[in-house]
Protein backbone atom coordinates (compact mmCIF):
# COMPACT_ATOMS: atom_id res chain seq x y z
CA UNK A 1 0.00 0.00 0.00
CA UNK A 2 1.23 3.48 -0.87
CA UNK A 3 -0.09 6.48 1.05
CA UNK A 4 0.03 10.22 0.32
CA UNK A 5 -0.44 13.00 2.88
CA UNK A 6 -2.66 14.69 3.87
CA UNK A 7 -3.89 11.51 5.55
CA UNK A 8 -7.63 11.03 5.68
CA UNK A 9 -9.50 9.07 8.31
CA UNK A 10 -10.38 6.52 5.65
CA UNK A 11 -6.69 5.81 4.97
CA UNK A 12 -5.74 5.84 8.66
CA UNK A 13 -8.41 3.23 9.39
CA UNK A 14 -6.79 0.84 6.92
CA UNK A 15 -3.31 1.02 8.45
CA UNK A 16 -2.55 -1.83 10.87
CA UNK A 17 0.51 -2.28 13.09
CA UNK A 18 3.01 -4.46 11.22
CA UNK A 19 1.93 -3.37 7.72
CA UNK A 20 4.83 -2.50 5.46
CA UNK A 21 3.82 0.47 3.36
CA UNK A 22 5.36 3.26 1.30
CA UNK A 23 4.80 7.01 1.20
CA UNK A 24 4.71 9.11 -1.95
CA UNK A 25 4.25 12.86 -1.80
CA UNK A 26 5.20 15.58 0.65
CA UNK A 27 6.42 15.03 4.22
CA UNK A 28 8.19 17.44 6.59
CA UNK A 29 11.33 16.92 8.67
CA UNK A 30 11.49 18.03 12.30
CA UNK A 31 13.58 16.85 15.21
CA UNK A 32 14.48 18.04 18.71
CA UNK A 33 15.09 21.76 18.22
CA UNK A 34 12.27 22.26 15.68
CA UNK A 35 9.84 20.37 17.92
CA UNK A 36 10.64 22.66 20.81
CA UNK A 37 9.82 25.67 18.66
CA UNK A 38 6.62 24.20 17.19
CA UNK A 39 5.45 23.29 20.69
CA UNK A 40 6.21 26.72 22.10
CA UNK A 41 4.42 28.41 19.20
CA UNK A 42 1.30 26.31 19.83
CA UNK A 43 1.41 27.05 23.55
CA UNK A 44 1.56 30.79 22.81
CA UNK A 45 -1.26 30.49 20.29
CA UNK A 46 1.00 31.55 17.42
CA UNK A 47 0.64 30.38 13.83
CA UNK A 48 2.97 27.52 12.87
CA UNK A 49 5.40 28.00 9.96
CA UNK A 50 3.86 24.95 8.25
CA UNK A 51 0.30 23.64 8.24
CA UNK A 52 0.65 20.31 10.06
CA UNK A 53 -2.99 19.23 9.71
CA UNK A 54 -3.11 15.78 8.11
CA UNK A 55 0.65 15.81 7.63
CA UNK A 56 3.55 13.49 8.52
CA UNK A 57 6.67 14.64 10.39
CA UNK A 58 9.89 12.73 9.76
CA UNK A 59 12.42 12.77 12.61
CA UNK A 60 15.64 13.22 10.66
CA UNK A 61 18.71 15.41 10.59
CA UNK A 62 20.30 14.69 7.19
CA UNK A 63 23.96 14.98 6.20
CA UNK A 64 24.78 17.74 3.67
CA UNK A 65 24.01 16.74 0.06
CA UNK A 66 26.65 16.40 -2.64
CA UNK A 67 26.19 18.70 -5.64
CA UNK A 68 23.28 17.31 -7.65
CA UNK A 69 21.85 15.29 -4.76
CA UNK A 70 18.46 16.18 -3.23
CA UNK A 71 19.62 15.24 0.26
CA UNK A 72 22.49 13.48 2.01
CA UNK A 73 22.15 10.42 4.19
CA UNK A 74 18.67 10.62 5.74
CA UNK A 75 17.59 7.88 8.15
CA UNK A 76 15.37 8.21 11.22
CA UNK A 77 16.51 9.36 14.64
CA UNK A 78 15.26 8.04 18.01
CA UNK A 79 11.65 9.15 18.49
CA UNK A 80 11.38 9.12 22.28
CA UNK A 81 13.10 12.52 22.51
CA UNK A 82 10.12 14.05 20.70
CA UNK A 83 7.57 12.42 23.04
CA UNK A 84 7.13 15.43 25.33
CA UNK A 85 6.00 17.51 22.34
CA UNK A 86 4.09 14.96 20.24
CA UNK A 87 0.66 14.84 21.99
CA UNK A 88 0.33 18.63 21.58
CA UNK A 89 1.11 18.35 17.85
CA UNK A 90 -1.35 15.48 17.42
CA UNK A 91 -4.03 17.57 19.13
CA UNK A 92 -3.30 20.27 16.53
CA UNK A 93 -4.02 17.86 13.67
CA UNK A 94 -0.74 16.09 12.89
CA UNK A 95 -1.60 12.60 11.59
CA UNK A 96 1.70 10.76 11.32
CA UNK A 97 5.27 10.63 12.56
CA UNK A 98 8.28 8.67 11.28
CA UNK A 99 11.20 7.64 13.48
CA UNK A 100 12.73 4.67 15.24
CA UNK A 101 12.22 3.17 18.70
CA UNK A 102 9.21 2.90 20.99
CA UNK A 103 6.92 5.78 22.01
CA UNK A 104 5.92 6.44 25.62
CA UNK A 105 2.35 5.76 26.84
CA UNK A 106 1.10 9.40 26.60
CA UNK A 107 2.00 9.46 22.88
CA UNK A 108 0.41 6.07 22.27
CA UNK A 109 -2.77 7.18 24.03
CA UNK A 110 -2.80 10.42 22.05
CA UNK A 111 -2.50 8.47 18.79
CA UNK A 112 -5.64 6.51 19.62
CA UNK A 113 -7.46 9.64 20.81
CA UNK A 114 -6.63 11.82 17.80
CA UNK A 115 -6.44 8.97 15.24
CA UNK A 116 -2.83 9.23 14.16
CA UNK A 117 -0.10 6.69 13.33
CA UNK A 118 3.58 6.22 14.14
CA UNK A 119 5.67 4.80 11.32
CA UNK A 120 9.09 3.19 11.64
CA UNK A 121 11.85 3.66 9.08
CA UNK A 122 14.97 1.51 9.21
CA UNK A 123 17.53 3.22 11.42
CA UNK A 124 21.04 3.23 10.01
CA UNK A 125 19.85 2.92 6.40
CA UNK A 126 20.33 6.61 5.66
CA UNK A 127 22.13 6.18 2.34
CA UNK A 128 19.43 3.88 0.97
CA UNK A 129 16.53 5.99 2.29
CA UNK A 130 17.99 9.12 0.68
CA UNK A 131 17.28 7.56 -2.72
CA UNK A 132 13.55 7.86 -2.00
CA UNK A 133 13.83 11.63 -1.46
CA UNK A 134 13.44 13.43 -4.76
CA UNK A 135 13.48 17.04 -3.55
CA UNK A 136 14.31 18.79 -0.31
CA UNK A 137 13.85 22.41 0.62
CA UNK A 138 14.23 24.23 3.94
CA UNK A 139 10.89 25.84 4.81
CA UNK A 140 11.40 26.97 8.42
CA UNK A 141 14.01 27.58 11.13
CA UNK A 142 16.90 27.64 8.64
CA UNK A 143 19.32 28.72 11.39
CA UNK A 144 18.94 25.28 12.98
CA UNK A 145 21.03 23.74 10.19
CA UNK A 146 20.49 19.99 10.04
CA UNK A 147 17.60 20.47 12.50
CA UNK A 148 15.69 22.94 10.28
CA UNK A 149 12.25 21.97 8.96
CA UNK A 150 12.54 20.66 5.42
CA UNK A 151 9.81 19.92 2.94
CA UNK A 152 10.64 16.58 1.33
CA UNK A 153 9.15 15.15 -1.83
CA UNK A 154 9.39 11.42 -1.40
CA UNK A 155 8.71 8.49 -3.67
CA UNK A 156 7.86 5.03 -2.35
CA UNK A 157 9.53 5.86 0.96
CA UNK A 158 9.47 2.52 2.89
CA UNK A 159 8.11 2.34 6.45
CA UNK A 160 6.40 -0.10 8.78
CA UNK A 161 3.27 0.83 10.75
CA UNK A 162 4.52 0.70 14.37
CA UNK A 163 1.47 2.14 16.14
CA UNK A 164 -1.96 2.18 14.49
CA UNK A 165 -5.07 4.11 15.51
CA UNK A 166 -6.35 1.02 17.32
CA UNK A 167 -3.58 1.05 19.96
CA UNK A 168 -1.49 -1.85 18.62
CA UNK A 169 2.31 -1.70 18.75
CA UNK A 170 4.64 -3.66 16.48
CA UNK A 171 7.47 -3.69 19.03
CA UNK A 172 5.31 -5.41 21.64
CA UNK A 173 3.80 -7.88 19.18
CA UNK A 174 7.14 -8.73 17.55
CA UNK A 175 8.95 -9.27 20.81
CA UNK A 176 6.18 -11.47 22.17
CA UNK A 177 6.24 -13.64 19.07
CA UNK A 178 10.00 -14.30 19.03
CA UNK A 179 10.75 -14.35 22.76
CA UNK A 180 12.38 -17.55 24.08
CA UNK A 181 12.69 -18.60 27.68
CA UNK A 182 16.29 -19.35 28.57
CA UNK A 183 16.93 -20.44 32.13
CA UNK A 184 20.15 -19.12 33.67
CA UNK A 185 22.97 -21.63 33.71
CA UNK A 186 24.34 -22.48 37.14
Amino acid at each position, binding site marked *: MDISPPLTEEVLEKLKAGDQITITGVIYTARDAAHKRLFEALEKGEKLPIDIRGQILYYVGPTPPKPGQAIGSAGPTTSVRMDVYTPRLLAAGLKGTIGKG*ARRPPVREAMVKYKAVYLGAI*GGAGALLSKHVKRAEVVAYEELGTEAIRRLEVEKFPVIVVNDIYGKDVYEEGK*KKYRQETPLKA
Partner: protein
Amino acid sequence: MRDIKAPDIAETVTRLCKEANYYLPKDVLDALRQAREKEEAPAAKQVLDTVMKNAEIASKEQMPLCQDTGTTVIFLEIGQNVHIVGDLHKALEEGVRQGYTQGLLRASMVRQPLSKRVNTKDNTPPVVHTEIVPGDKLKIVVLPKGGGCENMSRMAILMPAEGRKGVIDFVVKAVEDAGGNPCPPVILGVGIGGTSEHVMYLAKKAILRKVGEPNPDPEVAELERELLERVNATGIGPQAWGGRATALAVHVETYPTHITALPVAVNFQCHSARQREAVL
Protein backbone atom coordinates in the same frame (compact mmCIF):
# COMPACT_ATOMS: atom_id res chain seq x y z
CA MET B 1 62.95 8.57 19.68
CA ARG B 2 60.93 8.74 16.51
CA ASP B 3 59.43 12.02 15.33
CA ILE B 4 55.82 12.15 14.12
CA LYS B 5 54.62 15.51 12.83
CA ALA B 6 51.29 16.90 13.99
CA PRO B 7 50.13 17.76 10.43
CA ASP B 8 50.58 14.09 9.45
CA ILE B 9 48.36 13.12 12.36
CA ALA B 10 45.73 15.67 11.29
CA GLU B 11 45.76 14.40 7.72
CA THR B 12 45.38 10.81 8.87
CA VAL B 13 42.44 11.67 11.12
CA THR B 14 40.75 13.49 8.23
CA ARG B 15 41.04 10.40 6.05
CA LEU B 16 39.87 8.06 8.82
CA CYS B 17 36.77 10.20 9.57
CA LYS B 18 35.66 9.96 5.95
CA GLU B 19 36.48 6.29 5.43
CA ALA B 20 34.89 5.23 8.72
CA ASN B 21 31.62 6.88 7.73
CA TYR B 22 31.50 5.49 4.17
CA TYR B 23 32.76 1.91 4.52
CA LEU B 24 31.29 -0.63 6.90
CA PRO B 25 34.10 -2.93 8.16
CA LYS B 26 34.24 -6.42 6.61
CA ASP B 27 33.81 -8.22 9.95
CA VAL B 28 30.56 -6.30 10.53
CA LEU B 29 29.28 -7.18 7.05
CA ASP B 30 30.17 -10.83 7.60
CA ALA B 31 28.34 -10.83 10.94
CA LEU B 32 25.27 -9.26 9.31
CA ARG B 33 25.32 -11.91 6.59
CA GLN B 34 25.49 -14.69 9.18
CA ALA B 35 22.66 -13.11 11.18
CA ARG B 36 20.59 -12.98 7.98
CA GLU B 37 21.12 -16.71 7.39
CA LYS B 38 19.98 -17.57 10.91
CA GLU B 39 17.09 -15.12 11.11
CA GLU B 40 13.56 -16.54 11.32
CA ALA B 41 11.32 -13.47 11.22
CA PRO B 42 10.38 -12.25 7.72
CA ALA B 43 10.41 -8.53 8.63
CA ALA B 44 13.77 -9.00 10.36
CA LYS B 45 15.24 -10.62 7.26
CA GLN B 46 14.14 -7.62 5.29
CA VAL B 47 15.77 -5.23 7.76
CA LEU B 48 19.07 -7.10 7.49
CA ASP B 49 18.89 -7.10 3.69
CA THR B 50 18.20 -3.36 3.71
CA VAL B 51 21.11 -2.68 6.04
CA MET B 52 23.51 -4.62 3.79
CA LYS B 53 22.17 -2.90 0.69
CA ASN B 54 22.67 0.42 2.47
CA ALA B 55 26.33 -0.43 3.07
CA GLU B 56 26.72 -1.22 -0.62
CA ILE B 57 25.26 2.14 -1.68
CA ALA B 58 27.32 4.07 0.89
CA SER B 59 30.63 2.56 -0.19
CA LYS B 60 29.87 2.81 -3.89
CA GLU B 61 28.85 6.45 -3.69
CA GLN B 62 31.13 7.44 -0.81
CA MET B 63 28.15 8.59 1.12
CA PRO B 64 27.65 8.42 4.91
CA LEU B 65 26.19 5.04 5.95
CA CYS B 66 24.02 6.87 8.49
CA GLN B 67 23.00 10.51 8.83
CA ASP B 68 24.26 10.41 12.42
CA THR B 69 27.98 10.56 11.77
CA GLY B 70 28.45 10.66 15.50
CA THR B 71 30.61 12.10 18.18
CA THR B 72 34.12 11.49 16.89
CA VAL B 73 35.75 9.27 19.49
CA ILE B 74 39.49 8.85 18.92
CA PHE B 75 41.60 6.19 20.59
CA LEU B 76 45.36 6.68 20.48
CA GLU B 77 48.04 4.19 21.37
CA ILE B 78 51.17 6.25 21.63
CA GLY B 79 54.47 4.39 21.64
CA GLN B 80 56.64 5.65 24.48
CA ASN B 81 59.49 6.27 22.02
CA VAL B 82 57.38 8.56 19.86
CA HIS B 83 58.04 12.29 19.88
CA ILE B 84 55.11 14.31 18.55
CA VAL B 85 56.29 17.47 16.82
CA GLY B 86 53.56 20.08 17.29
CA ASP B 87 50.31 20.16 19.25
CA LEU B 88 48.65 16.72 19.32
CA HIS B 89 45.16 17.82 20.41
CA LYS B 90 45.04 20.70 17.95
CA ALA B 91 46.04 18.25 15.21
CA LEU B 92 43.23 15.85 16.15
CA GLU B 93 40.72 18.70 16.18
CA GLU B 94 41.91 19.95 12.79
CA GLY B 95 41.69 16.41 11.43
CA VAL B 96 38.05 16.12 12.52
CA ARG B 97 37.22 19.61 11.21
CA GLN B 98 38.60 18.82 7.76
CA GLY B 99 37.20 15.29 7.67
CA TYR B 100 33.66 16.32 8.53
CA THR B 101 33.66 19.37 6.28
CA GLN B 102 35.29 17.83 3.20
CA GLY B 103 33.50 14.53 3.66
CA LEU B 104 30.00 16.10 3.90
CA LEU B 105 29.52 14.45 7.26
CA ARG B 106 26.95 15.81 9.69
CA ALA B 107 28.10 18.22 12.38
CA SER B 108 26.37 17.02 15.53
CA MET B 109 28.31 18.59 18.41
CA VAL B 110 27.02 21.49 20.51
CA ARG B 111 29.44 23.86 22.23
CA GLN B 112 28.06 23.40 25.73
CA PRO B 113 25.62 20.78 27.05
CA LEU B 114 23.28 23.12 28.98
CA SER B 115 22.15 26.58 27.93
CA LYS B 116 24.51 27.07 24.99
CA ARG B 117 23.56 24.13 22.83
CA VAL B 118 24.95 25.79 19.71
CA ASN B 119 26.32 23.59 16.95
CA THR B 120 30.11 23.89 16.51
CA LYS B 121 29.45 23.29 12.77
CA ASP B 122 32.45 21.02 12.14
CA ASN B 123 31.84 18.23 14.69
CA THR B 124 34.72 19.37 16.90
CA PRO B 125 35.84 18.69 19.48
CA PRO B 126 36.49 14.94 19.37
CA VAL B 127 36.51 12.82 22.53
CA VAL B 128 40.06 11.51 22.87
CA HIS B 129 41.47 8.57 24.81
CA THR B 130 45.22 8.02 24.96
CA GLU B 131 47.24 5.06 26.15
CA ILE B 132 51.03 5.00 26.37
CA VAL B 133 52.39 1.69 25.08
CA PRO B 134 55.87 0.29 24.34
CA GLY B 135 57.38 0.98 20.90
CA ASP B 136 57.77 3.88 18.50
CA LYS B 137 54.47 3.81 16.61
CA LEU B 138 51.26 5.79 16.89
CA LYS B 139 48.00 3.90 16.40
CA ILE B 140 44.90 5.99 15.70
CA VAL B 141 41.38 4.54 15.81
CA VAL B 142 38.45 6.74 14.79
CA LEU B 143 35.06 5.62 16.11
CA PRO B 144 32.15 7.79 14.94
CA LYS B 145 29.66 7.08 17.73
CA GLY B 146 25.99 7.71 16.96
CA GLY B 147 23.64 9.13 19.57
CA GLY B 148 20.94 6.47 19.28
CA CYS B 149 23.17 3.73 20.62
CA GLU B 150 25.44 5.83 22.84
CA ASN B 151 22.46 7.24 24.75
CA MET B 152 21.46 3.76 25.91
CA SER B 153 24.73 3.27 27.85
CA ARG B 154 24.45 2.17 31.43
CA MET B 155 26.71 1.67 34.44
CA ALA B 156 26.25 0.28 37.94
CA ILE B 157 28.41 -0.81 40.81
CA LEU B 158 26.91 -4.13 41.87
CA MET B 159 27.69 -5.84 45.14
CA PRO B 160 30.20 -8.69 44.90
CA ALA B 161 27.54 -11.14 46.17
CA GLU B 162 25.43 -10.41 43.07
CA GLY B 163 28.18 -12.06 41.03
CA ARG B 164 27.84 -13.47 37.52
CA LYS B 165 24.05 -13.65 37.66
CA GLY B 166 23.85 -10.01 38.71
CA VAL B 167 25.98 -9.03 35.72
CA ILE B 168 23.85 -11.04 33.29
CA ASP B 169 20.57 -9.62 34.65
CA PHE B 170 21.96 -6.08 34.42
CA VAL B 171 23.08 -6.48 30.80
CA VAL B 172 19.87 -8.19 29.64
CA LYS B 173 17.74 -5.51 31.31
CA ALA B 174 19.77 -2.78 29.60
CA VAL B 175 19.03 -4.44 26.24
CA GLU B 176 15.32 -4.88 27.03
CA ASP B 177 14.98 -1.26 28.11
CA ALA B 178 16.84 0.02 25.05
CA GLY B 179 14.51 -1.78 22.61
CA GLY B 180 14.79 -0.33 19.12
CA ASN B 181 16.55 2.89 20.13
CA PRO B 182 20.17 1.70 19.66
CA CYS B 183 19.42 0.30 16.16
CA PRO B 184 19.67 -3.46 16.69
CA PRO B 185 21.28 -5.78 15.79
CA VAL B 186 23.85 -4.22 18.08
CA ILE B 187 27.33 -5.07 19.23
CA LEU B 188 27.33 -4.99 23.01
CA GLY B 189 30.41 -3.76 24.79
CA VAL B 190 30.45 -4.83 28.43
CA GLY B 191 33.01 -3.74 31.02
CA ILE B 192 33.37 -5.56 34.33
CA GLY B 193 35.70 -4.46 37.12
CA GLY B 194 38.00 -1.50 37.70
CA THR B 195 36.41 1.72 38.96
CA SER B 196 33.36 3.73 37.87
CA GLU B 197 35.11 5.61 35.05
CA HIS B 198 37.35 2.73 34.01
CA VAL B 199 34.51 0.24 33.66
CA MET B 200 32.77 2.44 31.07
CA TYR B 201 36.08 2.83 29.22
CA LEU B 202 36.37 -0.97 29.15
CA ALA B 203 32.84 -1.24 27.72
CA LYS B 204 33.69 1.29 25.03
CA LYS B 205 36.97 -0.42 24.16
CA ALA B 206 35.15 -3.76 23.94
CA ILE B 207 33.18 -2.59 20.91
CA LEU B 208 36.44 -1.98 19.02
CA ARG B 209 37.21 -5.71 18.96
CA LYS B 210 36.59 -7.62 15.70
CA VAL B 211 32.94 -8.70 15.75
CA GLY B 212 32.50 -12.02 17.53
CA GLU B 213 36.18 -12.51 18.38
CA PRO B 214 36.03 -14.06 21.87
CA ASN B 215 37.85 -12.80 24.96
CA PRO B 216 41.07 -14.85 25.43
CA ASP B 217 40.02 -15.81 28.99
CA PRO B 218 37.82 -18.96 28.67
CA GLU B 219 35.58 -17.96 31.59
CA VAL B 220 34.94 -14.53 30.08
CA ALA B 221 34.42 -16.07 26.64
CA GLU B 222 31.79 -18.39 28.13
CA LEU B 223 30.07 -15.39 29.73
CA GLU B 224 30.05 -13.67 26.31
CA ARG B 225 28.39 -16.73 24.78
CA GLU B 226 25.73 -16.90 27.46
CA LEU B 227 25.03 -13.16 27.29
CA LEU B 228 24.62 -13.36 23.52
CA GLU B 229 22.22 -16.28 23.84
CA ARG B 230 20.17 -14.47 26.48
CA VAL B 231 20.10 -11.20 24.59
CA ASN B 232 19.01 -12.94 21.40
CA ALA B 233 16.28 -14.78 23.30
CA THR B 234 14.54 -11.48 24.14
CA GLY B 235 12.80 -11.53 20.75
CA ILE B 236 13.54 -7.83 20.17
CA GLY B 237 15.30 -8.51 16.85
CA PRO B 238 16.54 -6.16 14.12
CA GLN B 239 15.04 -2.66 14.57
CA ALA B 240 12.98 -4.24 17.40
CA TRP B 241 10.45 -5.43 14.84
CA GLY B 242 10.70 -8.91 16.42
CA GLY B 243 13.24 -11.61 15.58
CA ARG B 244 16.40 -13.44 16.55
CA ALA B 245 19.23 -11.02 15.83
CA THR B 246 19.09 -8.49 18.67
CA ALA B 247 22.89 -8.53 18.96
CA LEU B 248 25.58 -9.62 16.52
CA ALA B 249 28.07 -10.12 19.34
CA VAL B 250 28.74 -9.45 23.01
CA HIS B 251 32.28 -8.42 23.88
CA VAL B 252 33.31 -8.40 27.54
CA GLU B 253 36.46 -6.75 28.91
CA THR B 254 37.46 -7.15 32.55
CA TYR B 255 39.89 -5.52 34.96
CA PRO B 256 40.86 -6.24 38.59
CA THR B 257 38.61 -4.43 41.03
CA HIS B 258 38.24 -3.43 44.69
CA ILE B 259 37.20 -5.98 47.33
CA THR B 260 33.93 -4.11 47.90
CA ALA B 261 32.81 -3.77 44.30
CA LEU B 262 31.53 -5.38 41.13
CA PRO B 263 31.37 -2.52 38.59
CA VAL B 264 29.57 -3.28 35.33
CA ALA B 265 28.98 -1.08 32.28
CA VAL B 266 27.20 -1.54 28.97
CA ASN B 267 28.00 0.42 25.82
CA PHE B 268 25.85 -0.21 22.76
CA GLN B 269 27.17 -0.07 19.22
CA CYS B 270 24.55 0.06 16.46
CA HIS B 271 24.65 -2.23 13.40
CA SER B 272 26.33 0.63 11.56
CA ALA B 273 29.43 -0.28 13.57
CA ARG B 274 31.83 2.15 12.00
CA GLN B 275 35.51 2.41 12.88
CA ARG B 276 38.74 2.88 11.00
CA GLU B 277 42.34 2.73 12.12
CA ALA B 278 45.82 3.64 10.95
CA VAL B 279 49.32 3.20 12.32
CA LEU B 280 51.91 5.95 11.84
